[in-house]
């Protein structure tokens, strides 16, 4: 009964994973015919590369900062969408759009919004006299601003998903418990931080862990906006693996880079299953 599902998972997930592992300990290049086992040579070479260390650090910065922003933003959004008001469904729909729209389209839109010549943000800033007309901020060209830009766009992209999960969790909370807290004399913030958010923690955990996985392994936003530039300052592990393995034809080293994602993702997946289980129980 489960056989088709098992076969499906093995074929589409298991085989590529094993293949990637074999590549990472071999000497495979695009177009090469043989396979020689080289042990940990690829990993050694990857670890010695300064670009890799930057990419590893960036991956963490990119994921952690965007997830913190998502968490705070999604909680505030969910809180304001919880109460019924006219036009709520429309607003909920609009908020969901960035998640529903293909990320590539969204990112291309942002690429124009952040463009060095045609940026609407700069246009507005210049009109408001907040930026110098002759040297406006280079959103994607300045290393610091580029990092900030990819983090903000990733946040924009992930926010709806987390909002929907948190909103669903909130709607499922028994109404009488916050009411009891209200009668017990708790004000808005005490209710929020001492009662409602702690009760929703398992659900918030699921939203955050999903967000971590989707952000840590995804390269779309970074690749479309900056291609890892300027000078590899926004390189993350997935973009570096792609550039080394596919564009640079060094499949083995690309595979080795992506292998660094595995232990982190295993930990996150384990945490996710555990907190999903806990959400089920209580």
């Amino acid at each position, binding site marked *: 009964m489960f056989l088709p599902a098992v076969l499906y998972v093995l074929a589409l997930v298991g085989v590529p994973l094993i293949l990637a592992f074999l590549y990472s300990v071999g000497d495979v290049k695009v177009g090469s015919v043989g396979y020689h086992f080289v042990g940990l040579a690829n990993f050694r070479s990857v670890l010695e590369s300064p670009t890799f260390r930057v990419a590893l650090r960036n991956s963490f910065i990119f994921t952690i900062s965007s997830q913190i922003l998502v968490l705070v933003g999604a909680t505030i959004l969910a809180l304001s969408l919880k109460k019924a008001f006219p036009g709520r469904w429309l607003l909920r729909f609009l908020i969901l759009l960035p998640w529903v729209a293909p990320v590539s389209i969204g990112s291309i839109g942002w690429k124009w919004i952040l463009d060095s010549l045609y940026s609407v943000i700069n246009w507005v800033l210049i009109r408001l006299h907040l930026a110098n007309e002759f040297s406006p901020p280079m959103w994607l060209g300045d290393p610091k601003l580029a990092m900030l830009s990819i983090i903000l766009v990733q946040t924009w992209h992930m926010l709806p998903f987390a909002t929907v999960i948190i909103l669903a969790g909130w709607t499922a909370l028994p109404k009488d418990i916050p*009411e*009891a*807290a209200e009668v017990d004399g708790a004000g808005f913030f005490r209710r929020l931080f001492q009662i409602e958010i702690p009760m929703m923690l398992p659900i918030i955990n699921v939203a955050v862990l999903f967000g971590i996985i989707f952000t840590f392994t995804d390269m779309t936003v970074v690749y479309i906006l900056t291609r890892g530039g300027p000078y590899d300052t926004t390189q993350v592990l997935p973009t570096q693996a792609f550039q080394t393995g596919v564009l640079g034809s060094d499949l083995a080293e690309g595979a080795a880079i992506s292998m660094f994602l595995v232990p982190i993702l295993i930990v996150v997946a384990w945490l996710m299953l555990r907190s999903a289980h806990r959400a089920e129980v209580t």
Partner: protein
Amino acid sequence: MAVVATRGLTKTFKAGQAAAVHNVNLESEEGEFLVLLGPSGSGKTTLLRMIAGLEEPTSGEILIGGVVVNDMTPRERRIAMVFQSYALYPHLTVLGNIVFPLKARGMGKAEREDKAGWAAGLLGIKHLLGRKPRELSGGERQRVALARAIVREPTLFLLDEPLSNLDAKLRASAREELEQFQRRVGTTTIYVTHDQVEAMAMGDRIVVMNFGEVRQIGTPAEVYDDPADTFVATFLGSPPMNLVEHRDVVVGFRPEHFFPVTQLAGRAAIPEHIRDADRSGPFVPLNFRTSHEEYLGAERIIYGHLEGRFEGKKAISRVPATTGGQFESASLHAFAVSEKHLKFFDREKGTRTGRVSLA
């Protein structure tokens, strides 16, 4: 001064719909145990929630301690409420639950733990302070909810069907405990229930509600013995009051006032269980065609319909199990009801009317 009073309190959830609570005027007395009794949908919980400040009245006023509190938040009203589900905070320990209202008030740690210890001692749950709500039984949860309510010594307790989640056996003992507890702390209490036994057993006064309106306010004896209308007459009492139509009135009598009589030497013998005050009569003899009987251990409930006077009307008799007699199906028996226990209601409106001759 009344602890709680409502004036013309009305709540309509949707414009154009019937009011959930309609024009309720209540006054509770200091230290009183006031029960709001009614079937589900009668508006009793909505009324309680309005007093708590969880629901905004459409019109009318709520006064607590003589002050209009309509615009106050629940927090400002300084009342305590026990919810039907107990609404314990699942992520906090029992101690955390009990001190929560004190924390919200900004009381220091030492003082609040002192208070929590006192409240827990009062309810006998000191040994549970370190546990989480999910590790407690239904009865223990109820006590934690009560401790959380009592700990800030409120002027008013609001209890929303706190016994309905307990099983039948536990409910009886919890009821008695709750009653004793209220007597001991002496806090004015408003208690919502749909269970007439609870209402009769615990209430100093009962407010009987139906379709959002107060039908009668009175002591348990008043609402039971002197129901204001046919709704109160049938809602209180199990089995309910017998109601038979007679010309333009409805005649009502309680099943326990409707009993079998035996002819002894040409004179009707009244069963032993009828108290002296009721033995003297006069009695209205009724012919009762019994259909079946329920034996409940301590008492027997006899079902059937009347013949002759009130021909064809259904009636129920309730006699102690110690009363003899066989009431097999379809047999005809001589029954009687004491005339002074007859109640008369308006046939159209269902309200009480004056005595009418049955002749």
